[in-house]
């Protein structure tokens, strides 16, 4: 994990003008957290001014609910990035899981007409999670055992998963979910909190615990930090690499089940924007493309930022084509600014010893 503490200087700026001191604080915040706090605050202020409806309770509530899916998928993507990989197949995994979940639900209901809806739902969720695990297992084996580059492996999987999803569904949405499915995974709320938000909080808490308080978390970070050193330390790196990709896809599968419940159909076209959005959320959240560095709290904020961006542009009636341009610009800018930050950080450390 990157250490974000900035060496506190004996403050020689006490008698400097206020703007100079403010600059110093901003400078330190930038070094510690990167571009994220700035763009987040800027986006909220800009949107609040440009479209007052943005700050309305209804919209913020909607935004929180809407962001949950991207947050969950981004946590999965983060795991792949932490082990110095990438998962290009997150979007198509969502589509495939959506189709298998829906087919399992409708299939169970047809096969056992008298079965309670709960049985069909359990079958659907099991099928969806299993689909995710299999996708992750194949990705992991390809990358860790067969040494295919993560990019190529998961791009291949992207095509395979989309193809399988379209084949299984015949290119048509899968209808006929029981009402309870939508209730449990999308529409119900507890103490005023919609269930997707609760699931998302659970994923974040579990993810935080796993990454920061378990040996598995240490393995994930060290695999990305220095694979060879981890192997020399006696760790079965192949096993942990495969396990990481399985976890990644299982988390994505869980997000896919929530999305399926939301649209109430199994869709082979679900999640097409999630690949780009999840990578952007992670990178803006400071997850390094070189592995080993990244915090789940910042990925959470990164995903919130991306959701604000898309939600805000929707409110401003910016065309979806233009939205894609903006998102791409942000992704590249985030990487460029992060490189500047790393250089400044190194400079700072040399100066302060």
């Amino acid at each position: 994990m990157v250490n974000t503490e900035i060496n506190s200087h004996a403050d020689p700026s006490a008698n400097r003008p206020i703007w100079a001191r403010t600059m110093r604080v901003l400078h330190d915040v930038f070094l510690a957290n990167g571009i994220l706090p700035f763009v987040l605050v800027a986006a909220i202020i800009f949107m609040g001014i440009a479209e007052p409806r943005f700050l309305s309770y209804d919209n913020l509530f909607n935004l929180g609910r809407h962001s949950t899916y991207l947050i969950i998928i981004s946590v999965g993507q983060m795991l792949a990035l932490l082990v110095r990989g990438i998962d290009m197949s997150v979007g198509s995994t969502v589509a495939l899981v959506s189709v298998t979940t829906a087919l399992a639900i409708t299939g169970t209901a047809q096969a056992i007409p008298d079965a309670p809806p709960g049985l069909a739902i359990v079958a659907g969720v099991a099928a969806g999670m299993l689909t995710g695990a299999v996708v992750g297992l194949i990705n992991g084996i390809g990358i860790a055992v067969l040494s295919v580059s993560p990019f190529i492996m998961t791009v291949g999987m992207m095509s395979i998963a989309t193809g399988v999803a379209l084949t299984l569904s015949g290119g048509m949405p899968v209808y006929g979910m029981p009402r309870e499915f939508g209730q449990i995974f999308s529409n119900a709320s507890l103490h005023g909190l919609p269930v997707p938000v609760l699931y998302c909080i659970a994923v974040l808490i579990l993810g935080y615990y796993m990454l920061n308080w378990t040996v598995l978390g240490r393995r994930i970070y060290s695999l990305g930090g220095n694979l060879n050193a981890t192997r020399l330390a006696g760790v079965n790196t192949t096993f942990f690499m495969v396990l990481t990709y399985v976890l990644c896809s299982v988390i994505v599968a869980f997000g896919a089940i929530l999305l399926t419940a939301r649209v109430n159909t199994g869709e082979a076209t679900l999640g097409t924007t999630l690949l780009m959005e999840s990578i952007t959320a992670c990178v803006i959240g400071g997850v390094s493309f070189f592995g080993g560095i990244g915090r789940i709290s910042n990925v959470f904020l990164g995903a919130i930022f991306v959701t604000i961006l898309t939600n805000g542009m929707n409110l401003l009636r910016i065309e979806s084509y233009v939205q894609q341009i903006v998102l791409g610009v942000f992704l590249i800018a985030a990487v460029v600014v992060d490189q500047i930050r790393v250089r400044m950080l190194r400079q700072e450390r040399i100066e302060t010893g």
Partner: protein
Amino acid sequence: MTLAQIAPTTNVTAKLPHQPLLSARGIEKNYGGNRALKGVSLDIFPNEVVALVGDNGAGKSTFVKILSGAETHDGGSILVDGQKVQMSTPNDAHENGIATLYQDLGLVDCFNVPQNVFLGRELTGRLGGAIPFLRHTEMRRRTADLLKELDIRLPDLARPVSTMSGGQRQAVAISRLLLGDVRLIIMDEPMAALGVDEGQKVLDLIARLSRKHISFFIISHNMEHVMTIADRIAVFKNGNLVGVVRREDTTREEITSMIVHGRT
């Protein structure tokens, strides 16, 4: 196991070993028709620093790789505490208390000091007897203790090692080895990438540790370092051990002559 447990208070001046910690007997290695090692025999005793010198291609690296289990040998045997051992993997070497410091030091750059020291053997506890968790505080404390024990001073243990100097990184890498049950540390050109000051600090550390029951076997090209730190100096030429001399019985000129001519 901490260093204190490995090395209880001993009379450090009594450098009179009875039995070699490690003995190589007639080690041979062939690469195709090329005989890289032609029957080398060498003993390393507890508490001593042995330097290995010789020209390029003399067989130094091959010999070190065999001792650390990274390469197999074609003839001869290896004994630890007088017992013949298999040394075909780095794990075999580890089990016999022999650790090798690789040139990249085996550190995870983005990890801080305790995270590196405990890499692969993190301390865990169970919350309420059920939920496993990492004992971060305990690992920090033990790392600090270990470093104190070794007289290693680092500015801030919470900083990623990527921000540290070459010498500091070397110190972290060495203390990482010493967390385990290590008695002999093999190093291949440890000072090659370091500045003068940094190199001196590492030399000091090696000298201190050798008084704490750790033996060192060091390949070095730097004759000045060798003459500062080694108790004995082994000279290789063309796959043969030309001689082993005690430092106080020799001179730089003599060593150089052995390297070049294969004799004194």
